[in-house]
């Protein structure tokens, strides 16, 4: 039997070339997201069977226009390809190009080819060629590029098998460079460079000169030798420009012989769409309408599946309670684990809907138009057009949003974006909002079609954005960070979104949420349950104490049960914690039970609902089938006899959750991305103080 060989294959390419589509075709569901050692950029990889005896470990490197990085994401490509000892260093590279922008795509290809790593060129979107009037002489192109070239259509699954056959023969690929950079720029300089580093390809040595930051893997001696070449910074800069111009000359020569576009056949859908979508009035109207559609759908479409999930877990809990033998273990399952898992899964409908929309906007190319429309406006707030994508992603989760800010090349714009993202309404706030809104806002329709609860939710989203913008203005005024802005974005052609790509993006995000945030929520639910079911002396003697207190009253057995349960909760460890902070939260309109939920949702907001569920479940011993909403609605404020969650308390809670920074995951990611504790601490205290003041004012005013 033949041994199955595993090779490392890196996918490299410009953004918008369909690289991810190809990755999805090659790996299917066989993919995972990991981390590059030491940094937090997502590393997407998956396995792909190439032939009977060859398997490829496929790494999807971030999209880039050049190997010279300008953003954090792009440095990954350079670091992976430069250092042979890097654990991700590939055995072969597949450069994905797109048929319409072949010229620009070939720049990156020529750079990688010159590194002398076995490299193959894939030209994607073969199916578009005829419509765009493009024809390519593949045989000639192979010859000129000294490489294998495969035409595919990743979305239509054309050419994938041919690609695999070529990959299987990667050992026979020609690895000679295509652009001889030396003579054209400065023959003497490059001759000396070549003689100094005989073991590297010339282009690699040149990259080591221009990208000194990434040389740490070299020996001391090599690093000293590099210094000889880097004294004249201006010269290096000039040579880099010359190199790029030379590469384009070379590419133009090659394409002249191999690539023909018949412009008369091209359709002009793009410019028509651009004229409408980037129009100074219609552009904004369409953008606002799309946002409106997204938020209405999140609330309308997600309600039903969320109610189903909620009901399902209520039933499951009853089932566990009635069928398992009574004892501590059953209590843990029925009151800790099951509500905990339910509290995680209940977000899935909303996260799914949100990510479907976001990935459609990205896939179609519309997102770049939004960047274009918003750049000038965002700059007044110290951010840039590219800040829009993180801010919109922030409505799903701040963690991926902060990571998405990496393609903002100005550090100042990026820092301000990172700092204000936590104000945007993330999906962790949604369940808190959803349950509070459903309790304090009547289910009515205004103007016939608009759902009043949906409008309230939209108001909260707007509030989050407004808070983000206002704090950005403040930061823009206060922050003294040097910056050099470089803004050049590609406006990709419009495409129909691929259902497959959207599916994989949504699956990936939901999976990341369940494993990341989910494990925290589940752990906190269990800890909470433990703290609520144990306590000091008063807790242990609860039955005796309550019986003595009510000696002279006649009380039904059921009522007695409830009295004991609530006495127990009050004297449990968590009850003691809640009571301790009660004086502080009283001005906001909360009691110690809400206090417990506040403490536990400090790590993650969504725990609020689960925590209340756990608290009320521990308290009520009998009716297990009520949902958390019904329980909250029937909670009475003993002092006033009114509902505990009345309009004033509800609004105060809504606003507290809108402003407060309650997410350990976000704080951790901000620390990692800014490499300083200063910024997360600023977020935590600033947002906390704001939330407290607003809530106190709201409650005082409304009550």
């Amino acid at each position: 039997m033949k041994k199955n060989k595993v090779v490392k294959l890196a996918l490299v390419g410009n953004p918008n070339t369909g690289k991810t589509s190809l990755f999805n075709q090659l790996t299917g569901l066989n993919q995972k997201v990991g981390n590059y050692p030491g940094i937090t950029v997502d590393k997407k990889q998956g396995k792909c069977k190439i032939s009977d005896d060859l398997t490829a470990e496929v790494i999807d490197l971030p999209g880039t226009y050049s190997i010279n990085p300008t953003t954090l994401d792009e440095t990954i490509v350079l670091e992976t390809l430069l250092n042979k000892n890097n654990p991700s260093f590939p055995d072969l590279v597949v450069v994905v190009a797109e048929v319409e922008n072949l010229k620009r795509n070939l720049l990156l290809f020529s750079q990688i080819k010159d590194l002398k790593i076995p490299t193959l060129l894939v030209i994607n979107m073969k199916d578009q060629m005829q419509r765009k009037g493009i024809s390519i002489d593949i045989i000639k192109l192979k010859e000129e590029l000294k490489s294998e070239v495969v035409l595919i259509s990743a979305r239509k699954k054309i050419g994938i098998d041919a690609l695999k056959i070529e990959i299987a023969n990667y050992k026979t690929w020609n690895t000679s460079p295509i652009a001889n950079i030396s003579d054209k720029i400065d023959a003497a300089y490059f001759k000396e460079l070549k003689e100094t580093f005989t073991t590297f390809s010339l282009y690699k040595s040149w990259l080591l000169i221009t990208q000194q930051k990434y040389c740490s893997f070299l020996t001391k001696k090599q690093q000293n030798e590099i210094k000889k070449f880097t004294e004249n910074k201006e010269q290096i800069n000039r040579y880099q420009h010359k190199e790029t111009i030379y590469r384009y000359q070379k590419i133009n020569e090659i394409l002249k012989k191999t690539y023909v576009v018949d412009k008369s056949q091209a359709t002009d859908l793009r410019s028509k769409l651009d004229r409408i979508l980037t129009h100074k009035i219609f552009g904004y109207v369409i953008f606002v309408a799309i946002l409106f559609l997204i938020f209405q759908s999140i609330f309308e479409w997600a309600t039903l599946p969320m109610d189903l999930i909620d009901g399902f877990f209520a039933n499951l809990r009853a089932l566990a309670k009635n069928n398992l033998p009574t004892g501590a273990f059953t209590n843990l399952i029925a009151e800790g684990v099951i509500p905990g898992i339910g509290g995680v899964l209940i977000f899935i409908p909303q996260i799914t809907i949100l990510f479907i929309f976001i990935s459609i906007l990205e896939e179609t190319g519309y997102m770049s138009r939004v960047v274009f429309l918003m750049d000038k406006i965002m700059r007044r707030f110290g951010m840039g057009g590219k800040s829009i994508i993180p801010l919109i992603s922030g409505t799903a989760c701040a963690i991926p949003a902060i990571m998405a800010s990496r393609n903002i090349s100005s550090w100042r714009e990026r820092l301000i974006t990172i700092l204000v993202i936590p104000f945007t309404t993330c999906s962790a706030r949604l369940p808190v909002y959803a349950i509070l809104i459903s309790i304090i806002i009547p289910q009515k329709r205004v103007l016939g079609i608009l759902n009043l609860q949906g409008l309230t939710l939209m108001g909260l989203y707007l509030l989050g954005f407004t808070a983000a913008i206002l704090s950005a203005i403040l930061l823009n005024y206060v922050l003294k960070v040097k910056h050099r802005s470089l803004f050049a974005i590609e406006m990709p052609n419009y495409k129909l979104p691929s259902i497959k790509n959207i599916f994989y993006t949504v699956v990936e995000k939901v999976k990341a949420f369940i494993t990341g945030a989910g494990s925290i929520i589940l752990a906190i639910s269990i800890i909470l349950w433990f703290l609520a079911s144990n306590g000091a002396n008063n807790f242990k003697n609860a039955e005796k104490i309550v019986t003595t207190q009510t000696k002279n009253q006649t009380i039904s057995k059921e009522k007695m049960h409830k009295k004991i349960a609530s006495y127990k909760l009050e004297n449990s460890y968590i009850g003691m914690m809640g009571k301790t902070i009660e004086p502080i939260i009283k001005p906001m309109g909360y009691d110690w039970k809400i206090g417990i939920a506040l403490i536990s949702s400090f790590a993650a907001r969504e725990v609020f609902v689960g925590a209340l569920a756990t608290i009320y479940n521990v308290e009520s011993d009998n009716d297990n089938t009520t949902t958390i909403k019904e329980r909250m609605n029937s909670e009475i404020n003993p002092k006033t006899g009114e509902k505990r969650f009345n309009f004033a308390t509800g609004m105060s809670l809504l606003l507290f959750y809108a402003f407060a920074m309650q997410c350990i995951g976000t704080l951790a990611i901000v620390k990692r991305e800014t490499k300083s504790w200063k910024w997360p601490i600023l977020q935590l205290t600033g947002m906390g103080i704001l939330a407290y003041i607003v809530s106190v004012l709201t409650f005082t005013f409304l009550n």
Partner: protein
Amino acid sequence: MGETIASLKIGEHGIIENFSLDAIPLKLLEMGCLPGQEVELLQVAPFKDPLYIMVNGSHLAIRIETAEKINITKL
């Protein structure tokens, strides 16, 4: 003549002349914005910034402060 990409009107074309290397980031060159290439102004964002151009087959958006530094000859 002092003409730059910023002085183009929508739909107008120009040829990029040599530009000062310090002023123009390498990335712009790498995206196809090179001396000798034809450039067309496709759209201008509200508030007259950024500019949406087509150069060397690439559709790009650049800020006006960059566009002002790229000298052209109008066609």
